[in-house]
């Protein structure tokens, strides 16, 4: 039995301290995910609170055979989908190829042109990534964040999103190539 599962069991018995431990464990990764996916810190904090409350009220549906982080991020991902629907932001179908308006994002050979990032310092690159992320469609951005910020495996992301692993790999790659191109723009 994992530490998370033990904490869930205690929380289900009414131990509030156990759930507070869960919040303390996951507040950082959840805020990283929500902050990078929404691009707004205050919104991310509100969402994180909502998601923890949803998780608390749904604890009874959690099964110890599941990885708790995957379960929690599934709630978070569904919350983000609701948010995008309410804001009527364009939802990208993750089953269809993405066209960013600048041609295919799945080139089969390396781009022989000048390097976009070679001369950038790492700090500057991170700063540009943060800015470029805002222009990446939400669902692609979300997959990128789950993979590179939260460091979920492709298999875990596939579980969270209910998608085939191959689709997840392809979409994360598309997000990265989109970011690379956006970072090169003035």
């Amino acid at each position, binding site marked *: 039995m994992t530490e998370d599962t033990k904490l869930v069991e205690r929380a*289900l018995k009414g131990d509030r301290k156990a759930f*507070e431990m869960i919040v303390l464990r996951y507040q950082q990764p959840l805020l990283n995910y929500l902050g990078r996916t929404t691009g707004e810190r205050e919104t991310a904090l509100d969402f994180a609170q909502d998601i*923890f409350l949803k998780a608390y009220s749904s604890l009874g549906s959690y099964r110890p055979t599941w990885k708790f982080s995957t379960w929690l991020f599934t709630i978070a991902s569904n919350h983000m989908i609701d948010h995008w629907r309410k804001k009527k932001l364009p939802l990208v179908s993750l089953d269809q190829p993405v066209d960013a308006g600048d041609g295919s994002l799945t080139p089969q050979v*390396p781009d022989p042109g000048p390097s976009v990032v070679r001369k950038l310092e*790492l700090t500057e690159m*991170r700063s540009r990534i943060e800015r470029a992320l805002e222009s990446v469609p939400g669902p692609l951005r979300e997959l990128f964040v789950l993979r590179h910020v939260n460091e979920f495996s492709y298999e875990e992301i596939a579980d969270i999103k209910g998608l085939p692993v191959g689709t997840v790999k392809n979409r994360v790659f598309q997000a990265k190539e989109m970011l690379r191109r956006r970072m090169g723009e003035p």
Partner: protein
Amino acid sequence: MKGCLSPDRIFLYLEGQVAPGERRACEEHLGRCPDCRAAFEERRLLHEAFSSLPPLEVPPNFARSVMAGIPENAGTVWRRIAAVAAAALALASGLLGFHLLTGKNLAGVLLSPSRALGAGLGDLLPLLAKVLKSAGLALELLYGLLSSLAGGLGALSSVARPEFAALMLGLGLVLTGLLLFGAKKLLSVGERS
């Protein structure tokens, strides 16, 4: 060049997501293809930056604010309500079962001891009053008797001889006995009244 690496393969290579055999093939190709090497180097830097984005700052009291939004012991409150409801149901079932089995009203049965106690006290209080009244009369008689006896003995000892005094004392005791008997009679008269 033949067998050039696609960008997605480069990223997967950087993430350690390619099979060992494919990994060796990628490395061999990178060793002889400058274009792929340049593309690889660029994506290696990108990969490093992607994977090292700084964490966002969590407010110090964030966990506490989350917990403040959770109803206080919501589960416990519901469990208590359920326990009270179960107890009430059990009591109602017990009353109904008692009534069905005995045909008696359980409330009446529960009230009968207090009724019996009330009736007992009703009988006891007049008896207590009679005892107190009798004790008062007895003390009054005893005081009168003792006073008369003391006065008589004083007078007798001053005028009569010892034999005569002893005779008079014996007569006095007999008279006292008669007086006590009379007191008993008086008590019985008091009871009748």
